[in-house]
């Protein structure tokens, strides 16, 4: 069962953040579900873009964190120390949603170890993992809970639609029993979008996770509008195409008008493009470096591009 006192505390803190930041919503444009949060310091001048999870009042910061590759460091002390600093920075700058999977090697165990080191951040963490097995999902979910050291996950997703009919039924049962708060499905690399569309139409979901970034925009045609219509939160994975966008564009200059869209780095440019989409709830970049984490988290602060500016950003990247 979800620990209700912990949940209540978390909801209270989340509510506080939104209250502190409430005055600036209008500045962000007409997107539904937008709100401004603040970092764990609750500083007035440190507001950032949060998005409301459809169907409720809870919001999450629009930049989360992925753990693919980066947190698969096993018991190597040096690498663990370095990643712990990354996670600390993430929380300090207001981050909440951390996404992992049993498929990511030791990432879940490492995440559990880190949460033992950062007990004060338990109330900030929005834990998201996946079920990824062709067998019955419950034992794997129990293992994941043990590894993370949690009593319940905030979000459980069916990884890459593996055995999704059985797993979704299980996740629905768990949600009804109060063992998980949100459920969803994931895809990546733009695969199986047709099947994902059918699931979105037919199944009651809270979240869907898919690949969306400034060059992979296929989801804009049908999936994102459908998710919006159905009241489903969207997590964008591969926001940098696993570094490919930096390799391709970092040597190019940002456009002269980058400051108009609040961008001072390419990380800003790529992430602001994603999180400014009205259907998008959260992007989950992964990183091994504190400095990159700072850049990632900076993207949800300051000016957020509107629809016209987003199109201009995409066209600029296309022109390079």
């Amino acid at each position: 069962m979800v620990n209700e006192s912990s949940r209540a505390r978390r909801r209270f803190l989340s509510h506080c953040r939104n209250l502190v930041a409430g005055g600036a919503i209008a500045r962000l444009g007409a997107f539904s579900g937008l709100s401004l949060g603040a970092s764990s310091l609750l500083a007035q001048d440190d507001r950032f873009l949060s998005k409301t999870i459809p169907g409720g009042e809870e919001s999450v910061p629009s930049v989360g964190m992925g753990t693919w590759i980066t947190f698969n460091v096993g018991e190597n002390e040096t690498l663990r120390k370095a990643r712990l600093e990354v996670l600390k920075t993430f929380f300090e700058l207001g981050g909440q949603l951390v996404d992992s999977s049993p498929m990511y090697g030791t990432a879940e165990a490492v995440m559990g170890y880190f949460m033992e080191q950062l007990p004060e951040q338990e109330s900030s963490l929005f834990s998201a993992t996946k079920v990824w097995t062709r067998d019955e999902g419950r034992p794997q979910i129990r293992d994941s809970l043990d590894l993370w050291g949690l009593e319940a996950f905030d979000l459980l997703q069916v990884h890459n639609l593996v055995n999704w009919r059985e797993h979704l039924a299980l996740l629905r049962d768990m949600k009804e029993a109060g063992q998980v708060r949100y459920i969803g499905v994931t895809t990546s690399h733009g695969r199986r979008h047709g099947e994902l569309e059918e699931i979105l139409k037919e199944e009651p979901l809270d979240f869907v996770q898919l690949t969306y970034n400034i060059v992979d925009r296929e989801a804009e045609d049908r999936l994102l509008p459908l998710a919006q219509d159905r009241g489903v939160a969207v997590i964008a994975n591969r926001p940098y195409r696993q570094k490919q966008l930096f390799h391709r564009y970092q040597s190019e200059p940002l456009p002269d008008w980058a400051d108009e869209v609040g961008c001072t780095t390419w990380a800003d440019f790529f992430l602001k493009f994603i999180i400014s989409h009205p259907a998008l709830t959260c992007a989950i970049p992964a990183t091994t470096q504190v400095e990159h984490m700072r850049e990632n988290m900076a993207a949800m602060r300051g000016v957020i591009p509107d629809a016209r500016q987003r199109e201009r950003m995409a066209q600029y990247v296309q022109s390079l």
Partner: protein
Amino acid sequence: MLPYSREILFSVFQSYQSSYGWLIVLFYLGLLPGLWWLIRAAPGPVARFWALWVLALAWALVGQLFFVKTFLDYDFLARYEAWLFFAQTLGLLWAGGWGLRSGAAFRAPGSAWLSGVMCCIGLLGLPLWDFVAQLNAGQEWPAALSAARWFGTAPGPTVVVTFALLLRVRAHWLLWVLPLVWSFKAGLVAYWLGLTSDYSLLLVGVVAAIFAVINTPHPGWIGVGRDSGRAK
């Protein structure tokens, strides 16, 4: 595409070799000179048998100790990769036993130079490359030495030495399949992880395969000639 980075890969080798991998490396470093002497002195079925069985042991150790016991925590594909190594182990054991019964021995010395070069690459070249790369990455020398991949503990050098041996023995072409699969996989990993050293595995595999085909007097059985497989 892979759930680990180059940094993580070498940290895994470092901890694996620091625990018990060194015992295996030292075991082989002690054993291989004796095997080399045996092959040089009496390149008959017995030497061939021992060479293949020692190699089979290396494939089994990599499959069990590296893939199953160590790397499976980091990469779910390790389970399947272990099976490839176990399958090759069985193949090599079978080939060794078959050779004893049929009297097969080592091939004519035409491929000896290439086999020798490949042995040097697998036993010394690749570990040295890793060692230098780790030093350049800022590791102290003991840690860099532990992070290097060695024959008998790591798949790459083991596969390269396998090519070296396959060039010198008469064996069924099926024994070439898994080493070749691995060398192509190594090429992909080299690309994904930016691991320049591992392109050499692809190169060694392609060169060995071409050389073996050119020198095969009888299609189907690489190196099995009309002389019933006896050494010339």
